[in-house]
């Protein structure tokens, strides 16, 4: 149970060499051993989506993965979204459209939506609702989150337009 395994987690381009018990979840390793506390733990069983991050181009719930499974993977978290002082368009849209209140669920929503918009900035409203319904927010009632994602999608489409 306490045998530890050497792994490397590459988070937002920076490599972290760690020793972890096999049972340690990815989110615990990211928060406690790599000090990246932007990723939050809500339900610890894959329901709320607060811990959503991007691992090798897949949006995953980091409470449902073991840290050892992410050894050598490319991990993106909320801390890596902004480019220096410039916020990612989706981060700015959450502020503009009041897509957050307490902010606890926000990193999960951001990573979920960033991943989806990078794959397809032309998401229909139905697809967007379907996507966002996988995460829980207790403050906003979701309408402003939908507005923020829709607005950021429009901006991303514009910036990609020839």
């Amino acid at each position, binding site marked *: 149970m306490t045998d530890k395994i050497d792994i490397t987690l590459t988070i937002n381009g920076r490599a972290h060499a760690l020793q972890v*018990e096999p*049972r*340690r979840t990815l989110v*615990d390793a990211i*928060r*406690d051993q790599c000090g*990246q*506390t*932007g*990723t*939050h*733990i809500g339900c610890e069983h894959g329901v709320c989506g607060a811990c959503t991050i991007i691992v090798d181009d897949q949006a995953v719930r980091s409470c449902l993965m073991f840290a050892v499974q992410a050894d050598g993977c490319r991990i993106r*978290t*909320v*801390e890596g*979204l*902004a480019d220096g002082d410039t*916020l990612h368009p989706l*981060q*700015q849209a*959450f*502020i503009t459209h*009041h897509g*957050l209140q307490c*902010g*606890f669920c*926000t*990193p999960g929503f*951001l990573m979920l939506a960033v991943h989806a918009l990078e794959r397809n900035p032309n998401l229909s409203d139905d697809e967007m609702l379907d996507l966002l319904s996988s995460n829980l927010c207790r403050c906003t009632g979701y309408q402003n989150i939908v507005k923020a994602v829709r607005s950021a999608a429009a901006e991303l489409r514009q910036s990609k337009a020839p």
Partner: protein
Amino acid sequence: MTRPVAPQARTWVGRPIRRLEDAALVRGRGRYTSDLPAALWVRFVRSSVASGHILRITAPAGAHMITAADLEAVQPIRPMLHKFNYVPIAQPILAREVVRFVGEPLAAVLASSPDAAEDLADQVEVEIESRPAVAEAEAALAPGAALVHAEATGNVVVTAQVKTPGYDAAAAAA
């Protein structure tokens, strides 16, 4: 479409306020309780049954466990509503003698790491004598239904009718 009512000067109500905390929160730089360093970690042991009488909670050797018996001096959470004639229901911090829902915290186990706390919490032995539960509001109101809180006769906490001033006029004009 209705237009927003122009706010009165010098009032905070009805006026959009630029939030100062958002720039940090969207960057993952919020500081929540679980982001702070801690010397001790807690894991709660929770009820697996919806209704029952607690017979025994036994801690594994060496565990630092807290139960309701250790919280004699801590008041339960009791809502203070003065508007209605209602039965104030006391919610214990940790279940005391009775459990009322699946997941109700029964005990807290403290340890120096979250893993250690989890391991110890898993070893806590809980004996509960299961009792009939009410799972739906209508079933709770049926005659003879099991009482969730002994002090709320018929499982009714409050009976109230509320009518806001001006309702009749607004309804008539709708």
